[in-house]
């Protein structure tokens, strides 16, 4: 269990993390989502006692990280895959980390096996690829068999097989009753792994809810309708907060009206409706909507594109393999 209370970090005039409060509970995967520069890493570094908060506090299992007698058994963290001496081998790095807690070499070998580092464990970390570095970081995080696991962008640089392995690992750890806190700037990654989502933008929490709620909360009802006379259907529906798009002569998308009202209107006006499909907003879209105002670095496309062309909706039910 991780509890942050009005946690703040300022660097000079810039506020990286602005009075955030949240709780990360055991038994589920909590995603920490935000665009680059939103304050995810800074928050995680404060959790692990690397950065001193400018205000507020954060505790793990009831006390600040540094106050634990056996911190590696409480929390395992991958914050930065490069936090390793490049001239030391992975095996010796793990051995040195383990020694601080009297963790036996047998556990070092276990985590090497678990993270698939066996073939490169005796090689210098300096020659590691980003993916191998991530695996070593995860090996360190698991060393103390901790109750809480914190992983900052764990799938960065991993091959597709490695990405899937991290997803399963996170889900298995949560299933064992552990607290799993996972950051990413990729909504699609969160959609596949997380149960609960904390969204951060420009140092402020903009959403803290189950994934499903975030999707529901952000999306207005959007309905795809096939009808013989779309215009006759749209005219009576027009009103505040209602918008529509004619995609094909007999295919329209209506936003802001629930499906029942459309059906009622169709019945009243005598318009033939042969498809009425409620659409769900993709998590990606929901995320974009949430963070649009909060993005630190906004990119602009070079050529004007129609927003419809880039909007791909995936049904959320199928988000987990």
């Amino acid at each position, binding site marked *: 269990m991780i509890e942050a209370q009005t946690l703040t970090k300022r660097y000079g005039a810039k506020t990286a993390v602005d009075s955030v409060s949240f709780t990360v509970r055991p038994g589920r995967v909590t995603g920490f989502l935000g665009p680059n520069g939103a304050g995810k890493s800074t928050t995680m*570094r404060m959790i*692990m*006692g*690397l*950065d*001193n908060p400018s205000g507020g506090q954060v505790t793990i299992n009831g006390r600040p990280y*540094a106050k*634990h*007698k*056996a*911190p*590696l*058994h*409480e929390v395992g963290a991958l*914050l*930065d895959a*490069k*936090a*390793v*001496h*490049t*001239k*030391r*081998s992975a095996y*010796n*790095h793990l*051995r*040195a*980390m383990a*020694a*601080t*807690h*009297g*963790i036996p070499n047998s556990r070092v070998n276990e*985590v090497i096996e*678990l*993270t*698939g*580092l*066996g*073939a490169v464990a005796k090689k210098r970390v300096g020659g590691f*690829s980003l*993916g*191998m570095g991530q*695996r070593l970081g995860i090996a*360190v995080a*698991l060393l103390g*068999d*901790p*109750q809480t696991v914190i992983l900052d962008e764990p799938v960065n640089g991993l*091959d597709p*097989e*490695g990405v899937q*392995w991290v997803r*399963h*690992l996170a889900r*298995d*750890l949560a299933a*064992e009753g*552990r607290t799993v806190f996972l950051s990413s700037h990729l909504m699609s990654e969160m959609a596949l792994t997380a149960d609960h989502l904390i969204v951060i933008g420009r140092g402020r929490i903009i959403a803290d809810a189950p994934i499903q709620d975030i999707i529901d909360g952000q999306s207005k009802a959007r309905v795809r309708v096939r009808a013989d006379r779309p215009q006759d259907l749209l005219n009576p529906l027009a009103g505040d907060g209602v918008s529509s798009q004619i995609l094909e002569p007999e295919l329209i998308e209506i936003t802001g009206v629930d499906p029942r009202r459309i059906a009622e209107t169709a019945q009243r006006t005598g318009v033939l409706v042969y498809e009425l499909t409620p659409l769900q907003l993709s998590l990606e879209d929901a995320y974009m909507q949430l963070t649009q105002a909060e993005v630190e670095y906004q990119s602009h496309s070079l050529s004007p594109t129609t927003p419809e062309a880039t909007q791909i909706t995936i049904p959320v039910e199928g988000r987990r393999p």
Partner: protein
Amino acid sequence: MSAHTTTSPSPTKNAPGPRAGSGITFSRVLRSEWIKVTTVRSTVILIASTVLVMVGLAVLAAWGYAQLAQSINDGSLPADLQAQGPGSPAVDALTTPSSGLIFGQLLIASLAVVLIASEWATGMIRSTMVAVPGRTPALLAKTVVAAAVAFLVGLLSAMVSYLIAQPILGSQDLDFALTEEGVLASIINTGTFLALVAVISMSLGTLLRNTAGGVVTAVGIFFVLPVILQLLSGLAAWIPDAARFLPGEAGNKMAAVTAAEDALTQLQGGLVMGAWALAFLVAALIATKKRDV
């Protein structure tokens, strides 16, 4: 990579939670720091070369004293040297075991700076601070390990130097016993001096977080500062007085066999340098505790 990861992702079958009896203790942190020192090849090479360089310098010194003594004995000493008064080779020869210090302190200073600054350079420091979030035990353990290594390097070098030098000095009857006054103390203090150099240098590396900066500053303190003060000594009477209290100067007096008049005694030298080391260490500990890493 993909071939190695067919293992079950489940990290353990046991219920999660801390295991009884395991946690951070200072001796465990010491052990971790010892593993770190011994598992980077360049560090081990630097330690070994320090011993070689120190012994080599001592052998050269012994040979020099023997040559000088021979020249005096057969009256072939060059006139200009004779005018200076060559001093007594028999007295100078006693300093042979510690004569490697001049370069030894430079190498040990580099070693100690590298041990901590390389952690900052590579990002390893974050792993260290996560494993030992109290931070003070981590830096203390690293300092203890560096000081112990430096002490052993100094002691071993001085002892080996003594043994190798005896036959060389013996050719001119300059050889001496360990039991002669001040000799054994000088050999032990060669180690003590290097241990204190290590403490000061590691503190500098911690404060500056930069290998090059740390090494340059350490060289500045041990080599350049005394020279500057010597150049300025004519300006005011207090300057040469103050120069005696520089860490390097005081430390050299500690490792000396006999104390010159007006100079610090071995004990005073040791206390002065110890005070410097303590001051640097406290500054480094405070900085480490407060800093974001």
